[in-house]
């Protein structure tokens, strides 16, 4: 009958109208900026540097200024200057640290290659998108202090990734500790035995810890 389709259409719009008051499926607007949208866990924007704790960010950066991310970055937006001295890292080993670590976010294309190649899980992708500024040159170039964020923050934005990284790092440190203990015990045993026989021989130069921190080729971080 002429008009039956019209009546059906009217019923559909009426259902939508009434439903928009009580049914969330029929009212999908997120009233930004009063209500922030929930971003998916795998959402990424620009990188940030992970620090072990928030109280001493510059002292606990995981980054050792190996400059791999700087060389791998396609638009070359990372600028790193190594430090002159060394600081002990989480396992106590002395490492370099970045004296200058700048990322130009006006150039960065969020490809996360820097995250994929970092051997130390030091740089990860952040999720902040409200970064509009009025000065492109001074405010979009982020330096070390602005990029450093604690591991707790990393857990907050990428829980699954952070949990995986933490468990892997903890396992490695544990393995490193075990090896160090075994080596120290062996060394102590070796030093104790030939000590009376070779008292006159020149003492061997103190060697660095026989077990450097394990650098197994990391699988690509399970991001994206």
């Amino acid at each position, binding site marked *: 009958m002429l008009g039956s389709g019209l009546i059906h259409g009217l019923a559909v*719009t009426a259902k*939508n109208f009434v439903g928009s008051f009580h049914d969330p499926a029929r009212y999908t607007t997120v009233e930004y900026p009063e209500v922030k949208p929930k971003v998916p866990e795998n959402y990424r924007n620009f990188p940030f540097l992970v620090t072990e704790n928030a109280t001493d960010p510059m002292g606990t950066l995981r980054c050792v200024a190996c400059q791999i991310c700087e060389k791998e970055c396609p638009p070359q937006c990372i600028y790193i200057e190594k430090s002159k001295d060394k600081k002990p890292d989480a396992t106590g080993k002395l490492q370099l640290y970045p004296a200058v670590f700048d990322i130009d976010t006006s150039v960065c294309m969020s490809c996360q290659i820097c995250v994929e190649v970092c051997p130390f899980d030091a740089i990860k992708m952040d999720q902040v998108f409200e970064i509009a500024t009025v000065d492109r040159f001074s405010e979009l170039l982020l330096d070390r202090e602005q990029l450093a964020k604690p591991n707790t923050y990393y857990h907050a934005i990428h829980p699954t990734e952070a949990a995986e990284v933490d468990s892997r790092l903890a396992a490695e440190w544990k393995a490193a500790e075990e090896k160090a203990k075994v080596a120290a015990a062996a060394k102590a045993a070796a030093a104790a035995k030939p000590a009376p026989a070779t008292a006159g021989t020149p003492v061997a130069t103190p060697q660095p810890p026989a077990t450097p921190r394990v650098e197994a080729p990391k699988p690509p971080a399970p991001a994206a």
Partner: protein
Amino acid sequence: MTTAATTDGILERAPQLLRDAVTGFLPAPWQWLANSLIGIAVVLGVFGLLFAFLTLAERKILGRVQNRPGPNRAPLPFLNIRSYGLAQPFADGVKSLTKEDVVPREADRVLHFLAPVALLAFSILTFAVIPFGRHLVLVELDAAVLYFFAAGAATELAVFMAGWASHNKYALLAAMRALAQLISYELPLLLSWVPVVMIAGTLSTTAIVDAQAGWTLGFIPQWHVLTPWGFCGFVIFMVAALAEANRSPFDLPEAESELIAGHLTEYSGFKYALFFMAEYFGMIALSGMAITLFLGGWRAPLPFLEFIPSFVWFGLKLGALLLGFIWLRATFPRLRMDQLTRFAWKFLVPLSLINLATTAVWSLSAGWSGPLQLVRWAVCLALVVVPFLALGRTLSAGVAPRTYRYAPS
């Protein structure tokens, strides 16, 4: 305005009493002038505000139908309180007033200025004969209905003036199309109220409302819409009113994708707002006339509800019709020019002519007694429904129901 009878309630007489309190001290000849001016000011004020909030209601309702909130951010000025969008119409008014008024260099300046003015003037003129309440009609004319549609017909001239004065061939083309639409739908519009005049025996709006008094069986109002010919006439009137007001689904003349904005292309700022004001006033006036002709005007639907003042009933009915217009806009896609004109000439005009014949049958059989009344109803219903189905079938001949290959059913 007519004088109130003392038997009416205090609420009913409130407008009269207010007006007399204000002008009672004037000498007699000036009182008529003052009363008229007050009436005009009240109509302009009330319907101006109604226009403003109608635009807001439309946007909010359209938004809710489309799963979004509609405007809800315009804050009250100087207070910065978001008021669910209630300040939006005033924000729009300020915006349209402060926008630059661009007139093309080659345009006919006089006509370019006159077109929205003429359109608005004729649209507002139509409010003069609508009875808003028992004693609330601005002018009581013997040929009121004809006056209403004469003033409405004169608005078409302003559409042409707008298209011509823009010195833009697309605007002119669109103005011609708009005129074609308006002329095509004049005929069903006028033919749909001729049955009402036939039954009521008068062209005066107040008398037509009086002809719809009383209740059959004590609770069914004797409104014209509750008769077979009246229902058909009401539906035809509403469809033609949609087209006359350039309202979706007949908004081809002013759609943004149609030749830019049709005849309104070269208008900006306040003149553009005036065009939309005229369109909304036309919508409100046509709804008011539909209420007067078919829905019993200011009459209450049930006898025990008569304590509610008549202008409140008119307002409720007007609100219902306007919400219906908005609902139709939210639902239906736009009609193409040829679909539009075909619908008018091949469907509405024959249907309204047959409706006229049905009304004649109804009128002549008014004196039938008892069970023959059922026969009368059956005959008139058949005379309305059968042509509707037949015409609908011929109009959609060759058009099969649409099947979708990929949509989940």
